[in-house]
């Protein structure tokens, strides 16, 4: 009996040590991983790498931000609206259940499949060439489920006394949602939007056959209707993530590896800055909205 107890204590100690080791291992792995990418990126730096020429990644960096911005303009209203519907108006029933299955299906679809759908519908069926707008639509589809669920959860988390108070003074349900629920839920919704943006920055598979794998622009043209202009959304444009893929698979550029290294570092820094920003913004908004 006594030795059994002793064994149990020893086993407990061993397990604790092993678990500490595993946790430490992952922290080290992540630190090593990020440090590797950043250091490699810094080492690959060369003057003019941010330029808008063929050897620079200026165009790709612009495309990445531009594409995600367009996709957010499309997906945020739809996602937030649908989230409000799910949280406030949807009655438990067949349609709601069906909508929930749809959201679940959308969120589990591989992004390459969304890319194929985007190619078929936005490119092939409209008879257009690869363009940023089609890419933005594909990324929108990818971020819809996230935006909807985040909004729904955020609105459901609003304390019901807020709503009851608003309804009691005679506001309609919709007025209550817009003037009470949405502002209170805003910090969480914004965090969700930033999360979606971060995913958009890194997305590649859905853009292969929608936004295209190359850019051909003249940075001196500012007319957004000119297909050579940087600002035109209806031109082919590769994002940073796609650029890394293209450099690896079909590049003719002699220093493709360095450019890919640098692109990976820039992409990572972009995403880190965004997630850090979302945390700070979320905390600040939370304080402001909760009146502390």
């Amino acid at each position: 009996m006594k030795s059994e107890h002793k064994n149990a204590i020893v086993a407990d100690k061993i397990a604790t040590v092993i678990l500490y080791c595993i946790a430490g291992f992952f922290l080290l792995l992540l630190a090593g991983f990020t440090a590797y990418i950043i250091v490699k990126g810094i080492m690959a730096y060369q003057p003019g790498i941010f330029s808008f020429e063929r050897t620079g990644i200026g165009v790709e960096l612009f495309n990445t931000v531009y594409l995600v911005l367009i996709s957010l303009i499309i997906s945020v209203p739809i996602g937030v609206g649908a989230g409000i519907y799910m949280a406030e108006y949807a009655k438990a029933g067949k349609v709601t259940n069906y909508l929930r299955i749809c959201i679940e299906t959308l969120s589990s679809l591989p992004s390459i499949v969304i890319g194929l759908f985007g190619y078929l519908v936005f490119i092939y069926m409209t008879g257009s060439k690869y363009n940023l707008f089609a890419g933005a639509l594909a990324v929108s589809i990818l971020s819809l489920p996230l935006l909807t669920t985040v909004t729904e959860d955020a609105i459901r988390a609003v304390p019901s006394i807020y709503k009851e108070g608003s309804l009691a003074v005679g506001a309609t349900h919709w007025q209550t949602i817009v003037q009470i629920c949405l502002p209170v839920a805003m910090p969480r919704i914004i965090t969700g939007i930033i999360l979606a943006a971060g995913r958009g920055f890194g997305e590649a598979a859905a853009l292969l056959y929608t936004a295209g794998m190359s850019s051909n622009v003249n940075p001196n043209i500012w007319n957004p209707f000119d297909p050579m202009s940087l600002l035109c959304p209806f031109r082919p444009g590769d994002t940073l993530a796609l650029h890394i893929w293209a450099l690896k698979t079909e590049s003719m550029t002699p220093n493709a590896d360095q450019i890919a290294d640098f692109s990976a570092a820039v992409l990572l820094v972009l995403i880190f800055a965004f997630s850090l920003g979302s945390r700070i913004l979320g905390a600040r908004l939370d304080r402001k909205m909760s009146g502390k």
Partner: protein
Amino acid sequence: MIYLIEKFKKEYLGRSIVTVLGIVIILVTLSITGFLFYKGLGTFVTYNHSVWEFLFSSEWKPADNFDGGGKVGAAIFIVGSLLISFLALLIATPFSIASAVFMTEISPKLGKKLLQPAIGIFVGIPSVVYGWVGLTVLVPAIAHVFNLPYGFSVLAGGIVLALMIFPTITSVSVDAIENVDNGYKEASYALGTTRWQYIYKVMLPSATSGILTGVILGLARAFGEALAVAMVIGKMLTFPDNILSATNNMTAEIASDMGNSAQGGEFNDALWSMALLLLIISFIFILIMRIIAKKGEEVK
């Protein structure tokens, strides 16, 4: 009348708009599934191949034209996808559960301060970056360690995917463990168990259904990942002899050949059929998760 207009402005307008937006999501999903079925069934309807040939034959020579007559056996890709995903699961699951246990039971303080943000960062790293590091570090390392001419292999794909699904499984497992009734812990400590005895005899069994959901979610993510795998798998049209040989999988094949095939041709339709198969597999995953969730509720 004025009352009605006012009411319309204050309530019905907004209400209709958000209802329509909800319907938009249903329509998008329906059209994606609709198009996938329509295009994906072309292989079997237009080009008269059997489902049996597609799933179990390894002869992949689809004709890139509208006459057909090629071979569309996708077994190599299917086996490739299965092997890599399950290998990734095999590597990631023990580590994920261990990390989840660490974050909840061993040191919640370190877990919240260090591991939670670290996992957030792991999730944020784009898949091409995982693929790129896999290609420049892992592939040469495997070639070096195992003395191979090239390191492109099932193992490389499995490790890259394991890294990518680790945060998914871990965070879902953390939720599952945190949902375990605190009374269980108090009761087992009162009976004199050690922490480890509580963890593996009480806590893990009662969190099993939640952890399983995380595992399935991870598996689904592994199955659908395209570019990271495509970078390290080697894209060889053969069954792998062992985990050190190169092969190909469904997503990598779709990604690399969709652009080189004529829309509506036999080759193109065969790729769509693979996309359809991916859709069906993700339906199956959703179904399994629903069953697990239901079982978990029944137990409670």
